[in-house]
Protein backbone atom coordinates (compact mmCIF):
# COMPACT_ATOMS: atom_id res chain seq x y z
CA UNK A 1 0.00 0.00 0.00
CA UNK A 2 1.22 3.49 -0.76
CA UNK A 3 2.82 5.59 1.96
CA UNK A 4 0.28 8.36 1.51
CA UNK A 5 -2.62 5.99 2.10
CA UNK A 6 -1.06 4.64 5.30
CA UNK A 7 -0.38 8.15 6.56
CA UNK A 8 -3.93 9.21 5.80
CA UNK A 9 -5.33 6.17 7.61
CA UNK A 10 -3.28 6.97 10.71
CA UNK A 11 -4.48 10.57 10.70
CA UNK A 12 -8.12 9.70 10.04
CA UNK A 13 -8.09 7.06 12.75
CA UNK A 14 -7.23 9.79 15.26
CA UNK A 15 -9.64 12.35 13.84
CA UNK A 16 -11.82 11.53 10.85
CA UNK A 17 -13.12 15.09 10.69
CA UNK A 18 -9.78 16.60 9.69
CA UNK A 19 -10.46 18.83 6.68
CA UNK A 20 -8.78 18.12 3.35
CA UNK A 21 -6.52 21.19 3.58
CA UNK A 22 -5.15 20.05 6.91
CA UNK A 23 -4.63 16.48 5.70
CA UNK A 24 -2.81 17.85 2.67
CA UNK A 25 -0.52 20.03 4.82
CA UNK A 26 0.16 17.21 7.27
CA UNK A 27 1.03 14.64 4.60
CA UNK A 28 2.72 17.04 2.21
CA UNK A 29 0.47 15.92 -0.65
CA UNK A 30 -1.88 18.12 -2.66
CA UNK A 31 -5.56 18.34 -1.80
CA UNK A 32 -6.45 16.51 -5.03
CA UNK A 33 -4.11 13.63 -4.19
CA UNK A 34 -5.58 13.35 -0.70
CA UNK A 35 -9.17 13.39 -1.98
CA UNK A 36 -8.32 10.81 -4.66
CA UNK A 37 -6.56 8.55 -2.19
CA UNK A 38 -9.39 8.64 0.35
CA UNK A 39 -11.93 8.02 -2.41
CA UNK A 40 -9.98 4.95 -3.55
CA UNK A 41 -9.87 3.56 -0.05
CA UNK A 42 -13.60 4.09 0.42
CA UNK A 43 -14.35 2.26 -2.83
CA UNK A 44 -12.02 -0.64 -2.12
CA UNK A 45 -13.45 -1.18 1.36
CA UNK A 46 -10.36 -0.13 3.33
CA UNK A 47 -12.38 2.65 4.92
CA UNK A 48 -15.79 1.28 5.87
CA UNK A 49 -17.29 4.04 7.94
CA UNK A 50 -16.52 7.29 9.78
CA UNK A 51 -17.90 7.07 13.27
CA UNK A 52 -17.27 8.92 16.54
CA UNK A 53 -16.00 7.28 19.72
CA UNK A 54 -18.82 7.75 22.19
CA UNK A 55 -18.68 7.52 25.96
CA UNK A 56 -22.25 6.41 26.57
CA UNK A 57 -21.72 6.50 30.32
CA UNK A 58 -21.71 10.28 30.09
CA UNK A 59 -25.17 10.26 28.50
CA UNK A 60 -28.55 9.52 30.04
CA UNK A 61 -29.00 6.40 27.95
CA UNK A 62 -29.19 3.11 29.83
CA UNK A 63 -27.17 0.48 28.10
CA UNK A 64 -25.74 -2.93 28.97
CA UNK A 65 -22.78 -4.49 27.24
CA UNK A 66 -21.41 -8.00 27.51
CA UNK A 67 -18.65 -10.07 26.00
CA UNK A 68 -19.90 -13.57 25.27
CA UNK A 69 -17.64 -16.51 24.64
CA UNK A 70 -19.33 -19.07 22.42
CA UNK A 71 -18.32 -22.67 21.76
CA UNK A 72 -19.75 -24.14 18.57
CA UNK A 73 -19.51 -27.28 16.48
CA UNK A 74 -18.02 -26.34 13.14
CA UNK A 75 -19.95 -27.55 10.14
CA UNK A 76 -18.64 -29.67 7.31
CA UNK A 77 -17.52 -27.61 4.28
CA UNK A 78 -18.38 -24.27 5.92
CA UNK A 79 -16.19 -24.28 9.01
CA UNK A 80 -17.21 -21.45 11.33
CA UNK A 81 -18.40 -19.01 8.69
CA UNK A 82 -22.02 -20.10 8.46
CA UNK A 83 -22.60 -20.11 12.20
CA UNK A 84 -20.74 -16.79 12.58
CA UNK A 85 -23.04 -15.26 9.99
CA UNK A 86 -26.10 -16.75 11.69
CA UNK A 87 -24.97 -15.00 14.89
CA UNK A 88 -23.93 -11.63 13.51
CA UNK A 89 -27.33 -11.18 11.91
CA UNK A 90 -28.82 -10.55 15.35
CA UNK A 91 -29.11 -6.78 15.91
CA UNK A 92 -27.91 -7.12 19.49
CA UNK A 93 -24.57 -8.47 18.30
CA UNK A 94 -22.20 -5.60 17.52
CA UNK A 95 -18.94 -7.49 17.03
CA UNK A 96 -18.00 -11.07 16.22
CA UNK A 97 -14.48 -12.51 16.26
CA UNK A 98 -13.26 -16.03 15.55
CA UNK A 99 -10.77 -16.81 18.29
CA UNK A 100 -7.97 -19.23 19.01
CA UNK A 101 -8.00 -20.94 22.40
CA UNK A 102 -10.61 -22.27 24.77
CA UNK A 103 -13.66 -21.05 22.84
CA UNK A 104 -14.47 -20.33 19.22
CA UNK A 105 -16.36 -17.07 18.83
CA UNK A 106 -16.23 -13.89 20.89
CA UNK A 107 -19.25 -11.61 20.67
CA UNK A 108 -19.75 -8.08 21.86
CA UNK A 109 -23.45 -7.73 22.59
CA UNK A 110 -25.45 -4.64 23.55
CA UNK A 111 -28.93 -4.34 25.02
CA UNK A 112 -30.99 -1.79 26.90
CA UNK A 113 -31.32 -3.77 30.10
CA UNK A 114 -29.70 -6.69 31.84
CA UNK A 115 -32.88 -8.72 31.42
CA UNK A 116 -33.02 -8.10 27.71
CA UNK A 117 -29.43 -9.23 27.32
CA UNK A 118 -29.97 -12.33 29.45
CA UNK A 119 -33.02 -13.18 27.31
CA UNK A 120 -30.98 -12.81 24.15
CA UNK A 121 -28.51 -15.40 25.41
CA UNK A 122 -31.07 -17.85 26.72
CA UNK A 123 -33.62 -17.67 23.92
CA UNK A 124 -31.71 -16.70 20.80
CA UNK A 125 -28.07 -17.66 21.18
CA UNK A 126 -28.03 -20.83 23.28
CA UNK A 127 -30.84 -22.36 21.30
CA UNK A 128 -28.87 -22.40 18.05
CA UNK A 129 -28.18 -26.03 17.14
CA UNK A 130 -24.45 -25.73 16.67
CA UNK A 131 -23.83 -23.71 19.85
CA UNK A 132 -22.54 -26.05 22.52
CA UNK A 133 -21.84 -23.56 25.28
CA UNK A 134 -21.70 -19.86 26.21
CA UNK A 135 -20.08 -17.74 28.94
CA UNK A 136 -21.38 -14.19 29.40
CA UNK A 137 -19.18 -11.46 30.89
CA UNK A 138 -20.87 -8.13 31.58
CA UNK A 139 -18.85 -4.96 31.01
CA UNK A 140 -18.72 -2.98 34.25
CA UNK A 141 -16.57 -0.02 33.26
CA UNK A 142 -14.76 1.08 30.15
CA UNK A 143 -11.33 2.55 30.92
CA UNK A 144 -9.90 2.69 27.42
CA UNK A 145 -11.35 1.78 24.07
CA UNK A 146 -9.93 2.15 20.55
CA UNK A 147 -6.92 3.92 22.00
CA UNK A 148 -9.04 6.53 23.79
CA UNK A 149 -8.98 6.78 27.58
CA UNK A 150 -12.55 6.98 28.91
CA UNK A 151 -12.33 7.23 32.67
CA UNK A 152 -9.81 8.12 35.31
CA UNK A 153 -6.09 8.36 34.83
CA UNK A 154 -5.83 12.15 35.25
CA UNK A 155 -5.49 13.36 38.78
CA UNK A 156 -5.08 17.05 39.46
CA UNK A 157 -1.65 17.11 41.06
CA UNK A 158 -1.69 20.86 41.73
CA UNK A 159 -1.87 22.35 45.22
CA UNK A 160 -5.50 22.95 46.18
CA UNK A 161 -4.95 26.56 47.23
CA UNK A 162 -2.28 28.84 45.82
CA UNK A 163 -2.51 32.54 46.29
Amino acid at each position, binding site marked *: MQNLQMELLQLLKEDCRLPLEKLATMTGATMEEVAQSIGDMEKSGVILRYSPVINWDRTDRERVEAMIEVRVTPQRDQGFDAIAERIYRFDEVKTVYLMSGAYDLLLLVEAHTLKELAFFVSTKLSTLETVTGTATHFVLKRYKSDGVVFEGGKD*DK*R*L*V*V*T*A
Partner: protein
Amino acid sequence: MSLTISAKCSAIAPSATLAMDTKAKELKAAGENVISFAAGEPDFDTPVHIRNAMKDSMDMGMTRYTPVPGTMELRDAIIARIQADRGLTYTRGEIIVSNGAKHTLYTAFQTLLDPGDEVLIPTPCWVSYPEMVRMAGGVPVYIEGKEENGFVPSAEELAAKITSKTKVFMLTSPSNPNGCVWSREMLQAVADLAVKHDFYIIADEIYSKLVYGDKEHISIACLGDQVKERTILVDGVSKAYAMTGFRIGYAAGPQNVIKAMSNYQSQATSAPNSAAQHAAAVALTGDQHCVETMRVAFEERRNRLVELINQIEGLSCVKPDGAFYVMMNVKALIGKSYHGTVLKDSAAFAETLLMNLHTVVVPGASFMAEGYCRLSYATSMENIVEGMKRIAAFVKELK
Protein backbone atom coordinates in the same frame (compact mmCIF):
# COMPACT_ATOMS: atom_id res chain seq x y z
CA MET B 1 21.02 33.68 73.93
CA SER B 2 17.67 31.93 73.89
CA LEU B 3 16.41 29.49 71.28
CA THR B 4 13.90 31.77 69.57
CA ILE B 5 12.79 32.65 66.08
CA SER B 6 13.95 36.09 64.93
CA ALA B 7 11.65 39.05 65.41
CA LYS B 8 11.82 39.65 61.67
CA CYS B 9 10.52 36.17 60.89
CA SER B 10 7.92 36.13 63.65
CA ALA B 11 6.40 39.22 62.12
CA ILE B 12 5.62 37.45 58.84
CA ALA B 13 1.90 36.79 58.55
CA PRO B 14 1.08 33.09 58.30
CA SER B 15 -0.71 32.17 55.11
CA ALA B 16 -4.36 33.03 55.49
CA THR B 17 -5.36 30.15 53.27
CA LEU B 18 -3.35 27.46 55.04
CA ALA B 19 -6.25 26.21 57.16
CA MET B 20 -8.48 25.95 54.08
CA ASP B 21 -5.77 24.12 52.18
CA THR B 22 -5.43 21.59 55.01
CA LYS B 23 -9.18 21.08 55.26
CA ALA B 24 -9.54 20.66 51.49
CA LYS B 25 -6.76 18.07 51.49
CA GLU B 26 -8.48 16.16 54.32
CA LEU B 27 -11.75 16.09 52.41
CA LYS B 28 -9.95 14.91 49.29
CA ALA B 29 -8.14 12.19 51.20
CA ALA B 30 -11.51 11.07 52.56
CA GLY B 31 -12.64 10.52 48.98
CA GLU B 32 -14.83 13.63 48.65
CA ASN B 33 -15.09 15.28 45.26
CA VAL B 34 -13.62 18.68 46.15
CA ILE B 35 -13.92 21.34 43.47
CA SER B 36 -11.25 23.99 43.71
CA PHE B 37 -11.54 27.54 42.46
CA ALA B 38 -8.34 28.28 44.34
CA ALA B 39 -5.60 27.23 41.95
CA GLY B 40 -2.96 29.84 41.17
CA GLU B 41 -1.53 27.93 38.22
CA PRO B 42 -2.78 26.74 34.82
CA ASP B 43 -4.38 23.28 34.74
CA PHE B 44 -2.81 22.56 31.35
CA ASP B 45 0.22 20.29 31.13
CA THR B 46 3.54 21.87 30.18
CA PRO B 47 3.70 21.61 26.35
CA VAL B 48 5.52 18.50 25.10
CA HIS B 49 8.33 20.32 23.29
CA ILE B 50 9.24 22.14 26.50
CA ARG B 51 9.20 18.96 28.56
CA ASN B 52 11.41 17.31 25.96
CA ALA B 53 13.83 20.25 26.12
CA MET B 54 14.16 19.72 29.87
CA LYS B 55 14.87 16.00 29.35
CA ASP B 56 17.40 16.69 26.60
CA SER B 57 19.18 19.39 28.58
CA MET B 58 20.58 16.88 31.04
CA ASP B 59 22.02 14.67 28.30
CA MET B 60 23.47 17.81 26.74
CA GLY B 61 25.44 18.34 29.94
CA MET B 62 23.46 21.25 31.40
CA THR B 63 23.84 19.98 34.91
CA ARG B 64 26.26 22.51 36.37
CA TYR B 65 26.42 26.03 37.77
CA THR B 66 25.53 28.75 35.31
CA PRO B 67 26.33 32.49 35.45
CA VAL B 68 24.39 34.04 38.37
CA PRO B 69 22.09 36.23 36.23
CA GLY B 70 21.28 33.24 33.97
CA THR B 71 22.73 31.49 30.92
CA MET B 72 23.54 33.52 27.80
CA GLU B 73 21.08 31.31 25.92
CA LEU B 74 18.20 32.17 28.24
CA ARG B 75 19.03 35.86 28.59
CA ASP B 76 19.20 36.15 24.79
CA ALA B 77 15.86 34.34 24.54
CA ILE B 78 14.34 36.78 27.06
CA ILE B 79 15.74 39.78 25.17
CA ALA B 80 14.27 38.45 21.93
CA ARG B 81 10.89 37.71 23.53
CA ILE B 82 10.62 41.16 25.13
CA GLN B 83 11.62 42.75 21.83
CA ALA B 84 9.03 40.75 19.89
CA ASP B 85 6.16 41.16 22.37
CA ARG B 86 6.75 44.67 23.67
CA GLY B 87 9.13 46.31 21.22
CA LEU B 88 11.59 47.09 24.02
CA THR B 89 15.34 46.68 23.62
CA TYR B 90 17.47 45.38 26.47
CA THR B 91 21.06 44.12 26.61
CA ARG B 92 22.36 41.07 28.49
CA GLY B 93 23.55 43.22 31.39
CA GLU B 94 19.99 44.45 31.89
CA ILE B 95 18.49 40.98 32.41
CA ILE B 96 18.52 38.70 35.45
CA VAL B 97 16.97 35.25 35.78
CA SER B 98 15.76 33.97 39.17
CA ASN B 99 13.93 31.05 40.79
CA GLY B 100 10.50 32.16 39.65
CA ALA B 101 9.11 35.68 39.32
CA LYS B 102 8.39 35.65 43.06
CA HIS B 103 12.12 35.36 43.76
CA THR B 104 12.75 38.10 41.19
CA LEU B 105 10.34 40.40 43.06
CA TYR B 106 11.88 39.55 46.41
CA THR B 107 15.36 40.35 45.16
CA ALA B 108 14.13 43.58 43.56
CA PHE B 109 12.62 44.80 46.87
CA GLN B 110 15.77 43.82 48.77
CA THR B 111 17.81 45.73 46.22
CA LEU B 112 15.74 48.92 46.11
CA LEU B 113 14.43 49.44 49.64
CA ASP B 114 16.08 51.02 52.65
CA PRO B 115 14.35 50.88 56.05
CA GLY B 116 11.29 53.11 56.03
CA ASP B 117 11.04 53.41 52.25
CA GLU B 118 7.46 53.32 51.06
CA VAL B 119 6.01 51.08 48.37
CA LEU B 120 2.68 52.05 46.82
CA ILE B 121 0.49 49.00 46.31
CA PRO B 122 -2.93 49.22 44.66
CA THR B 123 -5.41 46.85 46.32
CA PRO B 124 -6.84 44.22 46.04
CA CYS B 125 -3.28 42.96 45.72
CA TRP B 126 -1.37 39.73 45.63
CA VAL B 127 -0.71 38.32 49.12
CA SER B 128 3.07 38.33 48.93
CA TYR B 129 3.73 41.99 48.04
CA PRO B 130 3.15 43.48 51.52
CA GLU B 131 5.17 40.73 53.21
CA MET B 132 8.04 41.03 50.75
CA VAL B 133 8.14 44.80 51.25
CA ARG B 134 8.22 44.38 55.03
CA MET B 135 10.89 41.67 54.77
CA ALA B 136 13.02 44.23 52.95
CA GLY B 137 12.42 46.82 55.69
CA GLY B 138 9.99 48.82 53.58
CA VAL B 139 6.51 50.09 54.38
CA PRO B 140 3.56 49.06 52.22
CA VAL B 141 1.21 51.94 51.43
CA TYR B 142 -2.12 50.82 50.01
CA ILE B 143 -4.23 52.53 47.40
CA GLU B 144 -7.70 51.10 47.16
CA GLY B 145 -8.90 50.23 43.68
CA LYS B 146 -12.68 50.36 43.80
CA GLU B 147 -14.77 47.65 42.18
CA GLU B 148 -16.89 50.19 40.27
CA ASN B 149 -13.66 51.45 38.65
CA GLY B 150 -12.57 47.94 37.73
CA PHE B 151 -10.25 47.80 40.77
CA VAL B 152 -7.93 50.44 39.27
CA PRO B 153 -7.35 53.55 41.45
CA SER B 154 -7.56 56.95 39.82
CA ALA B 155 -4.55 59.19 39.15
CA GLU B 156 -5.70 61.55 41.95
CA GLU B 157 -6.07 58.75 44.51
CA LEU B 158 -2.62 57.61 43.52
CA ALA B 159 -0.98 61.03 43.68
CA ALA B 160 -2.47 61.61 47.14
CA LYS B 161 -0.41 58.75 48.58
CA ILE B 162 2.96 59.91 47.29
CA THR B 163 5.38 61.18 49.94
CA SER B 164 9.10 62.00 50.01
CA LYS B 165 9.63 58.39 51.12
CA THR B 166 7.91 56.81 48.12
CA LYS B 167 10.51 54.58 46.50
CA VAL B 168 8.55 52.08 44.45
CA PHE B 169 5.18 51.82 42.74
CA MET B 170 4.03 48.21 42.53
CA LEU B 171 2.17 47.76 39.26
CA THR B 172 0.42 44.48 38.47
CA SER B 173 -1.32 44.34 35.14
CA PRO B 174 -3.04 41.99 34.44
CA SER B 175 -3.67 41.59 38.14
CA ASN B 176 -3.81 38.69 40.51
CA PRO B 177 -6.27 38.68 42.30
CA ASN B 178 -8.73 40.94 40.46
CA GLY B 179 -7.91 40.39 36.77
CA CYS B 180 -7.86 44.11 35.92
CA VAL B 181 -5.76 45.32 32.98
CA TRP B 182 -4.49 48.89 33.27
CA SER B 183 -5.37 51.25 30.43
CA ARG B 184 -2.78 53.30 28.56
CA GLU B 185 -4.09 56.50 30.21
CA MET B 186 -3.67 55.14 33.73
CA LEU B 187 -0.22 53.78 32.93
CA GLN B 188 0.72 57.19 31.54
CA ALA B 189 -0.46 58.78 34.80
CA VAL B 190 1.72 56.40 36.83
CA ALA B 191 4.65 57.01 34.49
CA ASP B 192 4.31 60.82 34.76
CA LEU B 193 4.23 60.63 38.55
CA ALA B 194 7.26 58.32 38.61
CA VAL B 195 9.26 60.75 36.49
CA LYS B 196 8.05 63.80 38.43
CA HIS B 197 8.66 62.36 41.93
CA ASP B 198 11.52 60.02 41.01
CA PHE B 199 10.45 56.60 42.17
CA TYR B 200 10.84 53.15 40.66
CA ILE B 201 8.07 51.11 39.09
CA ILE B 202 8.15 47.37 39.56
CA ALA B 203 5.92 46.07 36.78
CA ASP B 204 4.80 42.51 37.53
CA GLU B 205 3.76 41.30 34.07
CA ILE B 206 3.58 37.58 34.82
CA TYR B 207 0.03 37.42 33.37
CA SER B 208 0.79 39.56 30.31
CA LYS B 209 -0.04 36.72 27.89
CA LEU B 210 -3.48 36.23 29.39
CA VAL B 211 -5.52 39.21 28.20
CA TYR B 212 -9.01 38.81 26.71
CA GLY B 213 -11.48 40.44 24.38
CA ASP B 214 -10.25 43.62 22.71
CA LYS B 215 -8.01 44.58 25.66
CA GLU B 216 -4.27 44.64 25.11
CA HIS B 217 -1.40 44.36 27.50
CA ILE B 218 0.75 47.49 27.55
CA SER B 219 4.12 47.38 29.21
CA ILE B 220 4.67 50.64 31.10
CA ALA B 221 8.35 50.71 30.08
CA CYS B 222 7.10 51.33 26.51
CA LEU B 223 5.91 54.82 27.47
CA GLY B 224 9.29 56.48 27.01
CA ASP B 225 12.95 56.25 27.96
CA GLN B 226 12.53 58.13 31.24
CA VAL B 227 9.93 55.58 32.35
CA LYS B 228 11.98 52.65 31.12
CA GLU B 229 14.94 53.90 33.21
CA ARG B 230 12.73 53.70 36.30
CA THR B 231 11.03 50.39 35.54
CA ILE B 232 11.93 46.88 36.61
CA LEU B 233 9.90 44.66 34.32
CA VAL B 234 9.20 41.27 35.92
CA ASP B 235 7.91 38.26 34.02
CA GLY B 236 8.41 34.50 33.92
CA VAL B 237 7.46 31.33 32.13
CA SER B 238 5.12 29.91 34.80
CA LYS B 239 1.73 31.18 33.70
CA ALA B 240 2.14 31.62 29.95
CA TYR B 241 3.72 28.20 29.34
CA ALA B 242 2.25 26.26 32.28
CA MET B 243 5.71 25.85 33.80
CA THR B 244 5.07 26.74 37.45
CA GLY B 245 7.24 23.94 38.81
CA PHE B 246 10.25 24.90 36.70
CA ARG B 247 10.75 28.04 38.81
CA ILE B 248 12.04 30.44 36.19
CA GLY B 249 11.30 34.16 36.41
CA TYR B 250 13.23 37.16 35.21
CA ALA B 251 13.60 40.91 35.37
CA ALA B 252 14.63 43.49 32.79
CA GLY B 253 15.67 46.89 34.03
CA PRO B 254 18.38 49.54 34.43
CA GLN B 255 21.84 48.02 34.40
CA ASN B 256 22.84 49.32 37.86
CA VAL B 257 19.73 47.83 39.46
CA ILE B 258 20.14 44.49 37.68
CA LYS B 259 23.82 44.39 38.64
CA ALA B 260 22.91 44.97 42.29
CA MET B 261 20.20 42.30 42.13
CA SER B 262 22.76 39.92 40.67
CA ASN B 263 25.18 40.64 43.54
CA TYR B 264 22.44 39.96 46.08
CA GLN B 265 21.41 36.78 44.27
CA SER B 266 24.99 35.52 44.01
CA GLN B 267 25.27 35.48 47.80
CA ALA B 268 21.77 34.18 48.43
CA THR B 269 20.91 31.53 45.86
CA SER B 270 23.25 31.71 42.84
CA ALA B 271 21.67 31.05 39.46
CA PRO B 272 18.49 29.02 39.11
CA ASN B 273 18.36 25.39 37.96
CA SER B 274 20.42 24.94 34.80
CA ALA B 275 18.14 22.43 33.06
CA ALA B 276 15.07 24.55 33.74
CA GLN B 277 16.86 27.55 32.23
CA HIS B 278 17.29 25.63 28.99
CA ALA B 279 13.62 24.54 29.00
CA ALA B 280 12.61 28.18 29.58
CA ALA B 281 14.77 29.33 26.65
CA VAL B 282 13.06 26.76 24.42
CA ALA B 283 9.65 27.92 25.64
CA LEU B 284 10.43 31.57 24.87
CA THR B 285 11.99 31.00 21.45
CA GLY B 286 9.91 28.03 20.24
CA ASP B 287 6.44 27.79 18.75
CA GLN B 288 4.10 30.19 20.58
CA HIS B 289 0.85 28.47 19.56
CA CYS B 290 0.61 26.73 22.92
CA VAL B 291 0.26 30.12 24.62
CA GLU B 292 -2.65 31.14 22.41
CA THR B 293 -4.39 27.77 22.82
CA MET B 294 -4.39 28.21 26.59
CA ARG B 295 -5.43 31.85 26.35
CA VAL B 296 -8.46 30.99 24.23
CA ALA B 297 -9.51 28.26 26.66
CA PHE B 298 -9.16 30.66 29.60
CA GLU B 299 -11.25 33.29 27.83
CA GLU B 300 -14.13 30.84 27.27
CA ARG B 301 -14.02 29.80 30.90
CA ARG B 302 -13.92 33.41 32.07
CA ASN B 303 -17.03 34.23 30.06
CA ARG B 304 -18.86 31.24 31.46
CA LEU B 305 -17.82 31.78 35.07
CA VAL B 306 -18.74 35.47 35.03
CA GLU B 307 -22.12 34.64 33.49
CA LEU B 308 -22.81 31.95 36.12
CA ILE B 309 -21.81 34.21 39.04
CA ASN B 310 -24.01 37.07 37.90
CA GLN B 311 -26.98 34.71 37.52
CA ILE B 312 -26.96 34.03 41.25
CA GLU B 313 -28.92 36.47 43.36
CA GLY B 314 -26.73 37.97 46.04
CA LEU B 315 -23.50 37.45 44.12
CA SER B 316 -21.92 39.64 41.46
CA CYS B 317 -18.63 40.31 39.75
CA VAL B 318 -17.11 42.62 37.18
CA LYS B 319 -15.80 40.90 34.08
CA PRO B 320 -12.02 40.80 34.43
CA ASP B 321 -9.87 41.52 31.36
CA GLY B 322 -6.87 39.37 32.19
CA ALA B 323 -5.11 36.70 34.29
CA PHE B 324 -7.37 33.82 35.39
CA TYR B 325 -9.12 35.23 38.42
CA VAL B 326 -12.53 36.71 39.19
CA MET B 327 -13.32 38.74 42.32
CA MET B 328 -16.76 37.59 43.40
CA ASN B 329 -18.60 40.18 45.46
CA VAL B 330 -20.25 38.48 48.46
CA LYS B 331 -21.04 41.65 50.45
CA ALA B 332 -24.81 41.11 50.16
CA LEU B 333 -24.49 37.74 51.88
CA ILE B 334 -22.26 38.73 54.81
CA GLY B 335 -24.25 38.51 58.04
CA LYS B 336 -26.58 35.81 56.72
CA SER B 337 -26.37 32.29 58.10
CA TYR B 338 -26.08 28.81 56.67
CA HIS B 339 -27.96 26.26 58.84
CA GLY B 340 -27.07 28.27 61.92
CA THR B 341 -23.49 29.22 60.98
CA VAL B 342 -23.26 32.99 60.67
CA LEU B 343 -21.18 34.23 57.75
CA LYS B 344 -19.48 37.13 59.49
CA ASP B 345 -16.92 37.77 56.75
CA SER B 346 -15.52 36.42 53.49
CA ALA B 347 -13.36 33.91 55.37
CA ALA B 348 -16.45 32.45 57.07
CA PHE B 349 -18.20 32.37 53.70
CA ALA B 350 -15.32 30.40 52.15
CA GLU B 351 -14.93 28.06 55.09
CA THR B 352 -18.64 27.24 55.38
CA LEU B 353 -18.83 26.68 51.63
CA LEU B 354 -15.89 24.30 51.78
CA MET B 355 -17.16 22.32 54.78
CA ASN B 356 -20.68 21.89 53.44
CA LEU B 357 -20.43 21.85 49.66
CA HIS B 358 -16.79 20.88 49.22
CA THR B 359 -15.98 23.84 47.00
CA VAL B 360 -12.87 25.95 47.54
CA VAL B 361 -12.71 29.71 46.98
CA VAL B 362 -10.10 32.05 48.47
CA PRO B 363 -11.42 34.70 50.89
CA GLY B 364 -10.71 38.28 49.85
CA ALA B 365 -9.14 39.24 53.18
CA SER B 366 -5.92 37.58 51.96
CA PHE B 367 -5.83 40.15 49.16
CA MET B 368 -6.87 43.19 51.23
CA ALA B 369 -10.35 42.85 49.74
CA GLU B 370 -12.84 41.99 52.47
CA GLY B 371 -16.30 41.34 51.09
CA TYR B 372 -14.95 39.42 48.10
CA CYS B 373 -13.81 35.90 47.30
CA ARG B 374 -11.31 35.13 44.57
CA LEU B 375 -12.28 32.44 42.10
CA SER B 376 -9.66 31.03 39.75
CA TYR B 377 -10.87 29.67 36.43
CA ALA B 378 -7.72 27.65 35.90
CA THR B 379 -9.89 24.57 36.05
CA SER B 380 -11.99 22.61 33.57
CA MET B 381 -15.30 23.92 32.24
CA GLU B 382 -16.96 20.88 33.85
CA ASN B 383 -15.58 21.87 37.25
CA ILE B 384 -16.66 25.47 36.71
CA VAL B 385 -20.24 24.44 35.96
CA GLU B 386 -20.42 21.91 38.80
CA GLY B 387 -18.71 24.27 41.26
CA MET B 388 -21.08 27.12 40.46
CA LYS B 389 -24.03 24.75 40.83
CA ARG B 390 -22.81 24.06 44.34
CA ILE B 391 -22.29 27.75 45.11
CA ALA B 392 -25.80 28.49 43.86
CA ALA B 393 -27.19 25.75 46.11
CA PHE B 394 -25.19 27.17 49.02
CA VAL B 395 -26.46 30.71 48.50
CA LYS B 396 -30.05 29.47 48.21
CA GLU B 397 -29.85 28.00 51.72
CA LEU B 398 -28.69 31.28 53.30
CA LYS B 399 -31.09 33.00 55.61
